[in-house]
């Protein structure tokens, strides 16, 4: 995912190779990560796809199944990874992730501590932000989750930037060896306030902490714990609202005598253009305009993000 090696970066020349991780894209809400192996096949509702057909093709290409249906093969990015990873826990999504990375002031070279690792959704983006000189140390007390996360990072080629450890950070705090070494600390824990004192010890002066909590009671307690050693305590909620874009046809009064009633409802499929054949001729006297409206179903809450800066004294 993050490589200094030109061969592994996106370019017009890059081709899919044996062992590459690709994101198989059917639709914006149907994607799957697949590691390319010459002898393997991918089977889905569109039929059977042979990996051997993919090797040597450019990333971003369309590939066909035995039934003539197609999918796109995309190069993985942290954003796509967040959409396809296996949910072993609740995860952070792009709006929170983007905000966290900016507000934690994570730049290349930073040392970031994180707990818990969970499904590694945020970790992947943190790794992108600290590369190529920095490092993310992430801790989860759940052995199996830590192991699965480690595998995922390896699959994405991120092991150089991430170290996963098993540790109860609420009980024991972060390891002493990181005292005064962290530029930023991120907490996504059930009782984050228990890890706040240790976080304060880990941070460099003026370093930033962020705690993500779904419940306001958690925020309240965390903020209380933060008053001792932190300043600039701020709590936010960030959400992403997505829009449906459609070519909407309105009938106009007069003309065909039908009173301008729209005979055909606008194309139902979300985010899809209505094909020309479908609409041509179905309404003679209609005007068509591309319009946008918020998607009706949306996430109403993810969590509160509390940021604080270690006080200098």
């Amino acid at each position: 995912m993050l490589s200094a090696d030109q061969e592994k970066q996106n370019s017009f020349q890059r081709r899919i190779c044996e062992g590459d991780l690709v994101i198989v894209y059917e639709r914006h809400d149907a994607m799957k990560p697949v590691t390319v192996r010459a002898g393997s096949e991918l089977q889905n509702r569109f039929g059977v796809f042979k990996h051997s057909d993919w090797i040597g093709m450019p990333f971003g290409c369309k590939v066909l199944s035995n039934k003539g249906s197609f999918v796109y093969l995309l190069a993985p990015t942290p954003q796509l990874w967040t959409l396809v990873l296996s949910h072993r826990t609740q995860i952070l999504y792009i709006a929170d992730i983007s905000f966290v990375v900016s507000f934690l002031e994570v730049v290349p070279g930073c040392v970031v501590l994180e707990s818990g690792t969970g499904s590694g959704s945020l970790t992947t983006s943190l790794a992108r932000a600290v590369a190529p000189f920095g490092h993310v140390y992430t801790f989860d007390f759940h052995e199996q989750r830590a192991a699965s996360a480690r595998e995922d990072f390896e699959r994405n080629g991120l092991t150089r930037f991430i170290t996963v450890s098993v540790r109860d950070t609420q009980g024991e705090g972060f390891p002493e060896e990181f005292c005064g070494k962290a530029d930023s600390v991120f907490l996504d824990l059930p009782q984050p306030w228990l890890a706040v004192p240790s976080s304060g010890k880990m941070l460099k002066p003026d370093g930033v902490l962020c705690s993500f909590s779904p419940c306001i009671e958690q925020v309240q307690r965390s903020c209380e714990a933060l008053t001792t050693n932190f300043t600039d305590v701020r709590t936010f909620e960030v959400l992403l609202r997505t829009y449906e874009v459609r070519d909407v046809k309105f009938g106009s009064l007069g003309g065909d005598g039908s009173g301008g009633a729209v005979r055909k409802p606008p194309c139902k499929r979300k985010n899809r253009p209505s094909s020309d054949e479908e609409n041509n001729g179905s309404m003679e006297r209609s005007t068509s305009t591309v319009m946008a409206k918020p998607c009706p179903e949306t996430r109403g809450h993810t969590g509160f993000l509390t940021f604080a800066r270690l006080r200098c004294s």
Partner: protein
Amino acid sequence: MGEEEGGHSPNPNSKVTWEGCSVLLDINGGDRLVFARLSPAASLKIGDKKCSLQPLVGCPFGSLFQVETGPKGAHLVLVSSPASSSPGMTEGMDPQEKNDGKLKGDEKDNRALIDDNRAQNLTGEDIDAMRRCGASGDEIIEALISNSSTFEKKTVFSQEKYKLKKQKKYAPKVLLRRPFTRSICEAYFKKYPSRIGFLRVDTLSLLLSMANVGAYSDVLVVDMVGGILTGAVAERLGGTGYVCCTYPGSAPYSIDIVRMFNFSSEICSRIVQTSSSSLLSAQDGDDEDDSSSDPPSNKDNGSMISSDEQSKKSTTDGSPVPVPTSVVNAPPTKKSVNPGMPASPDAIKLWKRRGFSSLIVAAPDMDAWSMVDELLPLLSYSSPFAFYHQYLQPLATCMHRLQTEKKAVALQVSESWLREYQVLPSRTHPHMQMSGSGGYILSGTRIFDS
């Protein structure tokens, strides 16, 4: 750390200021935000007093200073334990909060309080006299409190508010901040949103994620938002990869905000500019736009700056930095690389051959589709793009065309919503004021289409 030229940090992640470095000053807990450069002559006007910024040099970012008025005038003094104001009363405090909530154990309320401006026994002359005798700001505040006939009757919460108000007036505090994308964008959005095209910090952060900006990226940007986008991208690249700012016509857009970041020469050298016509010229290696025919003199083929193009320096040079500030700014001494040098013909050739790895457009005054139509072919296959606009409609139209012409997948028009909260015991609620719009984003991934 040692001395520095040109305001460039020796260590990109330095935690201590140096002479010539750019800083963000937060006056009285967010009341006023000022960018300044710590040149020897720099000073700042706080209230009616002018203070030298010299005491800030060599201090860790995050240090808190207080204005003290002595016999020789006002000066900034480092506050060693910046814990004097009660937590939660500073930045997170909602100015709209009028109803004095009851804290635990606070039985008082405001029923007996009469606000007739006669509660204070100290006069302006008294205070001036105290000052002449060298009283500190804190001592003046103490005196004001003990001479206030109503202070004792106030609720704990109101007492805190009273103290804070007096502190702001008689002992203003200055917090030394390191300018990062986050603080620069927030400061501009608060004070001069039009200069950054009303691009809110959460939207900017999304642009960077959605376009997959990270180490080694070659990012093509159209930055008509003053340089905040270019700076944000360069910050994420940390001296690897390139930010290539492109522009139609012959004059690059101003990217002056880039100077607010404390970029090292290494990072500055990764910010280059070129006209879209030179990127789009038909054949590979057709450098019609470059008058200089010298072969690139790069020893290391990593350098993308042509050394002989000083004469074609971008508009960033010489034009005043749009610093929202009252600071007297000595221009940074320039020995090091300026951001925004013209891209070398070699670099352009390479990008044409390989394609860019990200594309971000923030061009509020341009037709979105024409931009996209022109620039998308420069983006390598499977690479993501993100377009910002203040208005929804141009992006909707653009998305529709991209779909119809099957140029991209994973298309999405989105809008970020950001709400800040006041968190205080028994008084937690969203801020009364919030930004209603931070702009819209069209994001997607280019597909292989030939």
